[in-house]
């Protein structure tokens, strides 16, 4: 018997089932189809300005920084200012997200590189799929538009998120993913990011910048 068959046989023997019980199959199919929500914390169940305010508070709680601009065209200047304020070089790597591409980068002196990171970049910018107010989390989706390596290799990661894409809870993001990719289908990588990289492994002391970005900066675009 193959390892697979033996493991299934052992599970079924232990559970006292044979795997073809209609009622069990129905329960499983039903749950996978309906994906019922569980307990959703009230905290995130707010809308409009209140939700945006909660998101920003939670982003800061996660030790990231956040700023707000009133139009996509203001993003490049805002990022240039952030880099200057932290005495960081005016370089920036990004994918080919159409929303980022449409921004007036030439109005800044930023030196832009495109494509995934090979581990030598100081600064990168990505556009988020969405934000989650409940925990101040950014939801990132992989693809050439926003390569996953940009989320982890640069020292300073800047994430742009549209205010309209900031949801109350994780469940709302899953609904959008299902709408975009189809039920039961996922992009290769979804990253939830809540703050900059950190470690407490040495004497339980919190230190930022373990293997991922030392700084995480979020730019919320109102439109």
């Amino acid at each position: 018997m193959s390892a697979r068959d033996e493991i299934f046989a052992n599970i079924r023997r232990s559970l006292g089932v044979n795997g073809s019980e209609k009622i069990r199959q129905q329960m499983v199919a039903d749950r996978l189809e309906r994906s019922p929500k569980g307990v959703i914390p009230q905290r995130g169940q707010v809308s409009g300005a209140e939700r945006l305010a909660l998101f920003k508070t939670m982003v800061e709680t996660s030790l990231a920084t956040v700023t707000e601009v009133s139009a996509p065209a203001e993003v490049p200047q805002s990022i240039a200012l952030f880099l200057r304020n932290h005495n960081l070089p005016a370089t920036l790597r990004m994918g080919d997200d159409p929303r980022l591409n449409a921004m007036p980068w030439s109005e800044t002196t930023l030196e832009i590189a495109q494509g995934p990171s090979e581990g030598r970049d100081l600064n990168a910018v990505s556009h988020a799929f969405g934000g989650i107010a409940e925990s101040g989390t950014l939801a990132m989706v992989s693809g050439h538009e926003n390569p996953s390596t940009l989320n982890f290799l640069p020292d300073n990661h800047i994430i742009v998120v549209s205010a309209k894409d900031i949801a109350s809870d994780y469940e709302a993001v899953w609904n959008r993913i299902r709408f975009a990719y189809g039920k039961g289908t996922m992009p290769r990588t979804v990253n939830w990011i809540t703050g900059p990289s950190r470690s407490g492994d040495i004497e339980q002391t919190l230190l930022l910048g373990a293997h991922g970005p030392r700084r995480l900066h979020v730019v919320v675009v109102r439109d």
Partner: protein
Amino acid sequence: MNVHSTSPEFKQNAARALNDSQLQKALGNVKQGFIDKRRMAADKLPEFEALRDSARDIKNHTLEHLDLYLEAYEEKVKASGGHVHFARDAAEARDIILTICREAGAKTVTKGKSMISEEIGINHHLEAHGIRPVETDLGEYIIQLRNELPSHIIAPAVHLNATQVEEDFRRVHTHLDAKRDLSEPVQLLTEARAVLRERFLAADVGITGANFLVAETGTSIIVTNEGNGDLTQILPKTHIVLASLEKLVPTLEDVSQLLRVLARSATGQELSVYTTFSTGPRRSTDADGPENYHVVLIDNGRSAMLGTSFEEMLRCIRCGACMNHCPVYHAVGGHAYGWVYPGPMGAVLTPSLIGVDKAGHLPNASTFCGRCESVCPVRIPLPKLMRHWREREFERHLTPATVRSGLQFWGFFAKRPALYRLATRAAMGALALAGRQRGRFSWLPMAKGWTKYRDFPAPQGETFQARWKRERKGASA
């Protein structure tokens, strides 16, 4: 065969740990940090207790339908271009992993933190076959340099102090300036980051564990704060996920429930920094990510736990809250437990996986104070399960003869209440009389184990039952 265990020597391990001043200093960090942070995180979320119920119910439902969810999961992984391998035991898992690494022509393998990889002892197996495994979680990296097992499931190097880490870095990182300053923890972190960055970029295969697997989508999930797991899985050409069977949950909604209790219970964070959902290899529309995606599903004793009272242990999501709140763990640390999983969860799981004949001391190393159960995010009745192991140990005559005869002696009286009352009254009276001058005993017959370390207080002369009776009478009058 699993990794070597020193669980049978628990008593000697514990005695050594209690006399280890470095360890005792380091363990102070557990007591201080984790408990307060979890408390604050739980207090900030009014729905926390309801989420614990929800988490428990999701795990129970999945375990009851594990065969069907596994089939659904396997189908989804295949549909997304990934491979699923099944391993009955540790040896089979090691062979599968080695074969994949060889097919990838691997010289170096980076690893995200994974307890199942410790359980199957994959590092030694790879090394023995000329492949270099590099642990990338800072704590795991440190203990790999020291050739140790993790002493905690989420803080593997919690038993060490910064000066010990500094010594290890100086011993191993010989390419760096010997006069460099490493007196601050942040300098140690920066050095590890630079050294490991090169390893990440050079690795041929990345091996991670999985906090959860999602049947709905064929997704594996890792949760980290450092980002090491992500660099492990997106940079090399091949990504291998190691997961035991019970990591499965039905849907993305279900995993979102569990994630809401995981970080809060573990580190007191709202959410860990990086929660990553990986599904299959890179797509044609991806600019990065692994070209090959393998999942090795490992049984190694789990299927036999289903349908028994120990099925409840399979709900465990490895947050570490039970050991963070355990007075025994605080006193002896994780290594004394002698195998991969320490603390209360280890005391229940280890006998299931390596046998109660080898690990029988572990469920005995408990005061039954119940703190572990009170903080467990999936409400595993850990004290009850430890008691089950004690009963089995007793039934199988694995308990030492002195303990057995002692229990039989006590049992004789306990079953005869009138005799019990008489005997305890006589004994308490005699002890009170004998100890009335000093108020305590530094030596007592048959109680050397106690009096060797501390005095035995002299009883007041009245038994507990007699006092209970007297005070009840007073209260009702």
